[in-house]
């Protein structure tokens, strides 16, 4: 699968900021994930490596090193629950369990319809609002309670249905 012209253009626009093209790799992978539903399909990697003038293996090892890059599909809504100390102290385990129950899946898994995936993540830098839940790139502002899980999942399903109708 070739990189789309738009994506190629976005990546190339980053080059002037750095003395080496390789420095754009993390940014480029974020762009790929933005365009490809939150993950990096294997078949874009050779062209990406070519564009940045680096070996394919360098792209692969960066993808596997950083926890925000996904080599497998994630859900349309990627639910990330921080389970580090400040969040655990305020009930993060209960939040994980609530999503496990509502979605019938375990952390690291995706629902059959591709709508949701669940992940336990490390500190998201918002310990004052613990427990912290982040959906895709957006943090929930207030401490999330296990009882909120049903409502959130329903709202996200409804939002997905609405955007499907529009398109």
């Amino acid at each position: 699968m070739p990189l789309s012209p738009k994506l190629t253009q976005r990546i190339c626009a980053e080059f002037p900021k750095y003395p080496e093209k390789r420095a754009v790799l993390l940014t480029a992978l974020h762009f790929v994930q933005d365009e490809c539903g939150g993950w990096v399909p294997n078949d874009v990697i050779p062209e990406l490596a070519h564009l940045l003038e680096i070996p394919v293996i360098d792209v692969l090892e960066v993808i596997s090193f950083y926890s925000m890059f996904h080599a497998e599909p994630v859900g349309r809504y990627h639910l990330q629950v921080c389970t580090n100390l400040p969040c655990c102290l305020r009930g993060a385990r209960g939040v994980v369990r609530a999503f496990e129950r509502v979605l019938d899946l375990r952390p690291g898994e995706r629902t059959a319809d591709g709508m949701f995936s669940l992940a336990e993540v490390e500190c998201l830098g918002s310990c004052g609002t613990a427990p912290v839940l982040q959906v895709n790139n957006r943090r929930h502002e207030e401490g999330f309670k296990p009882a909120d899980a049903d409502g959130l999942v329903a709202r996200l399903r409804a939002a997905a249905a609405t955007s499907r109708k529009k398109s």
Partner: protein
Amino acid sequence: MAELRLLLPPVGQNWSRIADYRANGGYAAAAKALREMKPAEIVELVKESGLRGRGGAGFVAGIKWNFLPKDGRRPRYIACNADESEPGTFKDRQILELNPHKLIEGLLIAAWANSIDAAYVYMRGEYRGPFENLNAAVAEAYAAGYLGKNVLGTDMDFDIYVHRGAGAYICGEETGLLESLEGRKGQPRKRPPFPAISGLWRRPTIVNNVETMSHVPHIVTNGAEWFKRIGVEKSTGTTIFGVSGDVVRPGTYELPLGTPLRELIFDYAGGIPEGRALKAVVPGGVSMPVLTAEQAMQVTMDHQALIAAGSMLGTGGVVVLDERQCMVRAALVIARFFRHESCGQCTQCREGTGWLHRLMVSLEAGTGTPSDLEAIDEVARFMDGHTICALADAAAWGSGWFLRRFRQEFEAHVSHHGCPLAGTSFEV
């Protein structure tokens, strides 16, 4: 009780837009620095102010700047550390969300002082909102002539680029950050050479935290003596403390260094819910040794006092644990974190973090033995000080100090064949 806000706008205000920042005195320090002060004067002023790095290690910023070579080689860079990922730490986020021009102005003055061509702000990938907010502020600063060619009519060209990380704690380590910025795995580099000599793309580079750089404007405006009068000796100025865990009002509080930890927990953060008793405090992010309640009630939040108490100030991220909480579980969560975040480069860390985590899991599951307690201590000693970067030290302290300061509770897990606090403690 009121905070002393130098870095942050008054409670309830947001100065992210340049008009608001300027209306409150913003960019006056940059104008003063570029028009009235020689670069060397600024380096000396920052050194004289005693400003110490706010990223965890607490190195004196002005001394770090002095390590740059004097040969005039260009280009030279600033790598500004916005990777904030030490658990319990959420202070740089406040600056990035509420006062991003403060950081830009600090970077601009530091660039003038150190003949810097460009600054790269390395921001953790999860901070999408702060990334967008800082980028918007950078665009305003270009439009207003504070960035770009001939800044403020001088012969200085200066650019700021905001760069996103992708979820790796180790990229907050200064050389892991440089590797990551260059587009590689964030595995720390051996030193020497230090970044000031050979940093980004093997060019001279200064690496400073967001908060450190954000202190520079008000030091230029008010002078080193003024800054030294805030805080205590060898720990000058304010910092943004974060308080989380078992408190009534978790959040950030900007206060002078040297503030008693007791005041921070009981006055500012409202104490512990339902009048429960304090049990333990991690005073500076989970990398720093845990304090018992007795130690915590006596210590002040500055470098000297915390070292004397057997811990460190770190990032000033305070995690409070009350009487219900199990210390083995706390150590387990911290060990799990470091196991996940070890970059895998050094054997002591890669293997040691796994050992510590497995030992904690076994204790908590009731399968621990007395020799496991000795093993925790032994593994911790095997890791501490024997690796390229300080992640192994932090992992060793996290587990080792919970064991040393709460040994009875660890022993009880062995003799009870499980967690004696399972009925009250948080779940892991």
